[in-house]
């Protein structure tokens, strides 16, 4: 019988894999961020533009935006929008990487991934929170739901091992 409170070897091993993986990802992210260190103001400006849009868009504007970004996400590497629907509101989001990959391969994303294959992006704004919950649950390995992924959250999480 193992000692109470002492993690078994497999758990220790697993956490080590996770830590090293996070560190490697963080290193690459750091390298890329250094390359744009002179563009910090540009990043702030871009955020301001996007924030302005999130509060100013009409329902029709939202549909237009989603429709336009859907094409991006479905082509090649896709880089998508930065805006996802959450209920009636738009949530500012840095999810610019192809949802179809995340949803296709990440556990929990199967259902939504399947819907994406049917070009769900064009219907995204009307599906709202339910879709978003499934998407984020999928991308987060079924552990988090309804979490808007802001640049700060991503950066802090990725860099937390630094």
């Amino acid at each position, binding site marked *: 019988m193992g000692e109470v409170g002492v993690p078994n070897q*497999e*758990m220790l*091993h*697993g*956490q*080590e*894999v*996770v830590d*090293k*993986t*996070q560190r*490697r*990802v963080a*290193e*690459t*992210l750091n390298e*890329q*961020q250094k*390359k*744009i260190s002179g*563009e910090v*103001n*540009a*990043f*702030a*400006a*871009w955020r*301001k*533009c*996007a924030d*302005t*849009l999130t509060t100013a*868009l009409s329902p029709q*504007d939202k549909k237009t*935006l989603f429709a*336009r*970004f859907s094409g*991006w996400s479905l082509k*090649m*590497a896709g*880089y998508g929008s930065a805006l996802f629907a959450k209920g009636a509101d738009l949530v500012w989001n*840095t*999810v*610019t*990487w192809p949802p179809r*990959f*995340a949803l296709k*391969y990440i*556990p929990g994303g199967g259902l939504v991934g399947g819907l994406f294959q049917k070009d769900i992006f064009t219907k995204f704004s009307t599906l709202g929170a339910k879709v978003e919950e499934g998407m984020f649950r999928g*991308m*987060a*390995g*079924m*552990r988090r739901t309804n979490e808007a*992924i802001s*640049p700060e959250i*991503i*950066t802090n*999480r*990725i860099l937390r091992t630094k």
Partner: protein
Amino acid sequence: MEEKLNNLVQRITASSQPDEVKAELFDTISRGMHALVWPVLLKYIPTERLKGYAEHPETITVDSYIDLISEASGVQDGQAMKDLEQVVNTVLDDVGKVLTKYHIE
């Protein structure tokens, strides 16, 4: 990129690691890939126009925002996308090396 990612996911899924560890690995890969996009894309965004919009946010529209991002990702024969794919591939390769080190084949 898709092939590399698929390979990693298969290796992690088939491993004997606890589900929490698998979830954490998927989470790390997913978030890392997301986080890498904007640093790459920002290098190609027309800075002056962006600053102009930020100084006068009342002038930004859906179309102008779309144009801004489209230009950033499409200029120079899609160099931004090539850069992005290269960076993401680098991360996926790095993650693969870590998995190999821990015999997650």
